[in-house]
Structure formats: C-alpha cells, structure tokens
C-alpha cells in the first residue's frame, strides 16, 4: 500500500567510502538494464546501462554488475560524495516492447561527512 512505498530502503555511507546498491529484477527475458539517479524535485537521471551479454560495465566512479543467474543487478559508487545523495532506481527493458522501462524499487543513498 501507500505506506509501504514511503519507507524506501536506505543506505547510509560516509563520504569517501564506496557504496553498493542492489536490485533484483523480475523478467529473465530482459536484456537491457539501466541505473537512474533521482534527486529531490527532479526527474530520474541516467547513470549507466548494461546489456545482458555483459557482466560488468564501468563508468566514471560507477560500476554496474549483472548476475543473470540470480537476476541481480548492483551499482557500485566509488569514493561516495555528498552530491551522490539521492534515490537510485534500477530499470529493465521489456523485451516484448523494447523501449518500455520497468522500474524497480528505489534505494535512498545518504552520504554523511
């Protein structure tokens, strides 16, 4: 219900530490995955993506890992900064409709000094 949605999983990390945000996806046929960052009052912002033929992809300070066996996705943020504080969503592409994003439950990342 609505009250469940208010209690986002929260990850609190100290500035400079590494962060790992996890996501379980539902559709074993999904072949494209994206991580989004959403700051308060803003729309989701693309961070990094990965296709199902890859296990790992790296960007600037971010790494996405994909484990298709257990349908698990993770986002690693190196040297977490206060500006990384936001809600993070994973999304999968519906392969029947290849441009339909299905978002997972968000995780709130809080960075403290």
């Amino acid at each position, binding site marked *: 219900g609505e009250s469940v*949605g208010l*209690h986002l999983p929260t990850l609190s990390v100290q500035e400079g530490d590494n962060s790992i945000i996890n996501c379980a996806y539902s559709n074993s046929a999904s072949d494209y995955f994206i991580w989004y960052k959403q700051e308060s009052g803003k*729309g989701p912002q*693309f961070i990094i993506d990965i296709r199902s033929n890859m296990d790992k992809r790296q960007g600037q300070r971010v790494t996405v890992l994909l484990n298709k066996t257990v349908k698990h996705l993770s986002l690693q943020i190196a040297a977490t900064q206060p500006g990384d504080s936001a809600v993070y969503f994973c999304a999968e592409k519906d392969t029947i409709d290849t*441009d*339909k*994003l299905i978002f997972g439950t968000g995780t709130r990342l809080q960075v403290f000094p």
Partner: protein
Amino acid sequence: EAGVVQSPRYKIIEKKQPVAFWCNPISGHNTLYWYLQNLGQGPELLIRYENEEAVDDSQLPKDRFSAERLKGVDSTLKIQPAELGDSAVYLCASSLTTSPGSEQYFGPGTRLTVT
C-alpha cells in the same frame, strides 16, 4: 541544450476538478513518454508516443485520463475528473529513437495534489 520542459511544476486541485499538464521534449526527439510516479516508487509508464501516434497507452486509465501530441512535438496530459488517488508526480520523458540504447531524458515532473 534545454532539457525536457514541464509545466506547471506544482498543482493543487480539489477532487472532481480537471487538470492538465504540458510537456515540451528535447528538440529532435521523436519519442515522448508520460510516467506516473507515486511517492517512494519508481515511475510507471502511462503512454508513449512515436511522433504524434500513441503506440502504447495500455496503462492509461482511459475513463479519466487523456493525452495528445497533435504536431508530434509538445504534449498534454489531462485528467478529468481528478480523484484523490491521482495525487502523484507526473513525469514526461523523451528519447531520440526507440532503440534499446536510446536514452530517455526526464523532465522535472509536475507534482499533483488532489484534495
């Protein structure tokens, strides 16, 4: 380059009143999306346009929701009449194409409160 523009940013209305949201996508983006985002949850697709054609409106509650993109550029989403449960953020997004790697760019959203 300007991003996706939405207006208004906030709207408060009483139940049973109509409301409309406007979206201007990034220039040159043929695909436009409207999403609904409830508090603490991820966005859910309401409708997707390819130019002026609605190609996926399966999640749009057609009894009270309507959308249009007459000239294949900007779009409006309307609710009539609004219900208390419609309180949410309505996000618009656009992408260049529909290929899986074509990034969707989101606007800031319109936060609707129905009292």
